[in-house]
């Protein structure tokens, strides 16, 4: 692995604060006009590593490491850094809370009209999107955890008051985001003969089965998910969709609050927008929602006790959807078993008839968690790994692009996802059609590659995947902005695709935040103990046996009686102890230590023999 996550994260932190902290204040904005999602992304560039990696914690300023302080020195010293963050976070939460105290998740400048030249209405620009909901879950949790630890050392009344206010705002925002996610989940059912049904059947039918047999098998395979969905209450996407047993279905998240989504009862009054999003799961938003929801039941959230009772109820409701969605998509991805998985049949087709390599990548993203939970074996992981490798090639991440290569569009300007339903406005009027551009192919690819690598039990598979991740990182690294105030942030696609014209020199927080997530995933993998190799363990045991024996022989000979030899032998004894202590966890290191011990013991033996005039 060539990437150094700590250094890369420090560079990213420094670039982020140098760009964002100007004239003594946190200044939101970048390439896109600031909106609720982009600002959350900008703040998460600091807050997410700080909440996920022990070494990057900022909540105990007494213990902040020097290189970390230095990377953030634009914000001030170790004491000032958390204070500035509190202010920046509070300002953000404040800005995106309406006059009536309702958190706002508007998509703003991230939305684009489908047809160039058209103008979105302000009502459309204020639409809540799942991206913002999910980012807000992550940011609120990072904030609450940070405050919980930081407040132990804070005495200043003004700061305490500011922190209390921020805690309140973040907790409200978290509740509202969870309610939003509960109301944007959806189940879409359709007849096998409908266009959607046909696409689904074609996608999963890798063995050329007759449609009826296939539908029967599919029903069988998805029976548990179906039964689970019938139990879903609270929010949208319940049993009513599944009344027709003959119908096929899909589940996941739409782009926003779905049409006719019922309101969720909350303890404190909460204004809940009327849903207009199509009642159909969209793969991209499903992945985004799953990522955010996973933070809700992470160990950190539990240990720090970040959720109140109401939020815990919502969390359980979301967790059920999370489980079912994972199961659903991983069942589809691997349907039919041995010969060829639907997932391996690139590109994936969605039930609205679109197909793209990007969708294949999204399906992998959904199924990675399922692989993790099922403790998938290396054979399955290797298959997914091959798909990732192929996607990297096809997406021109690890291969040079041709001039006018259509694959480059995956990265710049990105895929434009239709936000079906966003054109419907209050009062029956119709506005322009809305799209959501996504350009995170490379980062999504990187993140899943590293996740699969960290699951891999065998050295060769892990090595292959890590080499792939190195290559993807090279690609990402080339896309860093290198000039101007945003140097060190992303994204300049022309760095990797020379035929593109260099674009806007302002940072894309969308991509920068995703690069940061990649580095966090990587850092967490590095934190794990190294892979253990059975052959090495056997070798280490055998070496230890021999070394131990020769060592005992030396002692028996009375070597410990000779001054200088005594200290050296004692040293070797300690090295032997060390080798035994690490033989189980780091057998390779143990072998290295034992080899050294054996060689040195042999020096004594040989010296003795030569004094007796013997030869070996």
């Amino acid at each position, binding site marked *: 692995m060539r990437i150094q996550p700590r250094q890369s994260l420090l560079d990213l932190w420094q670039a982020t604060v140098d760009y964002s902290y100007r004239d003594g204040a946190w200044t939101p904005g970048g390439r896109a006009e600031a909106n609720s999602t982009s600002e959350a992304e900008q703040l998460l560039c600091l807050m997410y590593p700080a909440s996920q990696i022990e070494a990057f914690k900022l909540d105990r*300023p*007494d*213990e*902040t*490491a020097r290189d970390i302080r230095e990377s953030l020195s634009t914000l001030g010293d*170790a*004491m000032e850094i958390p204070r500035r963050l509190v202010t920046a976070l509070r300002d953000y939460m404040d800005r995106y809370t309406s006059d009536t105290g309702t958190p706002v998740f508007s998509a703003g400048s991230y939305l684009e009209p489908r047809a160039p030249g058209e103008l979105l209405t302000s009502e459309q620009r204020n639409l809540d999107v799942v991206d913002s909901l999910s980012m807000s879950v992550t940011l609120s949790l990072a904030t609450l955890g940070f405050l919980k630890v930081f407040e132990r050392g804070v005495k*200043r009344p003004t700061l305490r008051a500011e922190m209390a206010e921020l805690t309140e705002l973040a907790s409200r925002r978290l509740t509202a985001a969870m309610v939003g996610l509960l109301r944007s989940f959806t189940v879409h059912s359709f007849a096998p003969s409908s266009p959607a049904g046909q696409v689904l059947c074609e996608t999963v039918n890798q063995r050329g089965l007759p449609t009826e047999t296939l539908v029967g098998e599919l029903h069988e395979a998805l029976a548990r998910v179906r039964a689970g969905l019938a139990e879903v209450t609270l929010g949208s996407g319940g049993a009513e969709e599944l009344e027709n047993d003959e119908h096929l279905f899909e589940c996941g998240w739409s782009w926003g609050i779905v049409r006719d989504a019922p309101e969720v009862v909350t303890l404190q009054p909460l204004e809940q927008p009327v849903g207009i999003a199509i009642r159909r799961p969209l793969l991209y938003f499903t992945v985004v929602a799953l990522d955010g929801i996973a933070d809700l039941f992470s160990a950190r959230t539990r240990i720090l006790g970040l959720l109140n009772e109401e939020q815990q109820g919502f969390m359980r409701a979301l967790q059920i959807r999370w489980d079912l969605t994972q199961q659903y998509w991983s069942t589809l991805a691997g349907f039919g078993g041995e010969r060829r998985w639907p997932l391996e049949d690139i590109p994936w087709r969605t039930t609205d008839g679109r197909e793209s390599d990007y969708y294949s990548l999204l399906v992998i993203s959904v199924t990675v968690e399922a692989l993790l939970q099922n403790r998938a074996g290396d054979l399955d992981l290797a298959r997914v790994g091959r798909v990732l490798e192929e996607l990297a090639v096809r997406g021109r991440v690890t291969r040079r692009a041709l001039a006018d290569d259509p694959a480059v569009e995956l990265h710049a300007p990105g895929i434009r996802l239709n936000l079906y339903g966003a054109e419907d406005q209050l009062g029956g009027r119709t506005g322009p059609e809305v799209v959501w551009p996504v350009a995170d192919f490379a980062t999504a690819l990187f993140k899943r590659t590293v996740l699969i690598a960290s699951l891999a039990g065998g050295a060769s598979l892990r090595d292959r995947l890590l080499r792939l991740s190195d290559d993807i990182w090279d690609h990402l690294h080339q896309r860093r902005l290198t000039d101007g105030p945003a140097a060190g942030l992303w994204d300049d696609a022309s760095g990797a695709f020379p035929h593109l014209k260099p674009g806007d020199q302002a940072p894309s927080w969308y991509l920068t935040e995703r690069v940061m997530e990649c580095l966090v995933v990587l850092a967490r993998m590095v934190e794990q103990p190294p892979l253990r190799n059975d052959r090495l363990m056997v070798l280490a045991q055998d070496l230890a046996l021999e070394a131990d024996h020769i060592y005992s022989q030396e002692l028996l000979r009375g070597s410990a009686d000779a001054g200088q030899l005594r200290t050296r032998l004692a040293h070797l004894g300690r090295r032997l102890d060390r080798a035994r202590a690490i033989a189980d966890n780091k057998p390779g290191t143990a072998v290295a230590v034992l080899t050294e011990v054996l060689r040195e013991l042999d020096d004594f033996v040989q010296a003795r023999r030569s004094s007796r005039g013997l030869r070996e």
Partner: protein
Amino acid sequence: MILIATSDKGGTGRSVTGCNIALRCALQGSNVCYVDFDFGSPTAGAIFHVESAARGILGGQGMHSFLAGEAAAPVELDLWRHMDRAGLRPRPPGAGRLVLFPGDEGGGEFPVDEDMTDRCVRLLRRLAEEFDLVIVDLSAGRSYALQLVLEATVRPALRPVLARWLVFHRWTRQHIIAAAGLAYGDHGIVDTGAAKGHDRDHLRDSIRFVRTAVPDLDSEQFAGLVPTQAAWLQETDADLQRLAARRRIGRSVLLGSIPLDPVLQWREQLILESDVWTLRIANPQTGAALDELAKDVMDDDPWEGL
């Protein structure tokens, strides 16, 4: 403002750092006086390059004699006229006053009585009016001088005067434990002060710590370490950070950190710009750390804490 400098152990660089703070504050334009309450070993004169007061002064007119009631007024030395060091005489343009109140040669520790406290209160009150910064250098540990100052600063006459405490300690396990003990432990500053009528929280919040002789792993003096030593040193440093945090003398109450510097270490002396830039015997980091410390001593923000 009265700045009381103390330490649990000797050899922490309390006096030499205190003198350097005094000099730098004066050079930045403040009127500063340095009062030597280190009765056992009044060596501030030596640090300030005043030969005649190197170990306190003779003649029974020093701080010791004054507090004991044997002298009507203590001797005060205008350091700009007495410092025997090129570049420091006469007073540089823009500099404020810099005055030393030396101790007596051959003085010693003595128990505190009521009259002595009165004299101490009157003196400090007068000095606080006359100077922007009054640095009181105490003997190490839980001394009579510490008792005296705690007793004096709680008196109504000194109540309105801002008093701040600096505890100096070296960056080692024992020193960290000792410094925390002196501040917060049994018969420590807070404990003793509270018994004498100080507000416990307020007193605790007016204590800050200065780490001295801190090895800077990135500096050139450590360039010769073998990698295992560097790894060990880094881990030890992180360990000390955690220890300090646990003992509540972590970075949130840290006012400054003075790097290990040969000039401070072997010849306790003032560090001038010329030492850093012309003679290049002192490290630039040391000069910068002292500047920063002198600034923070007078600044309110670092004293407000988190």
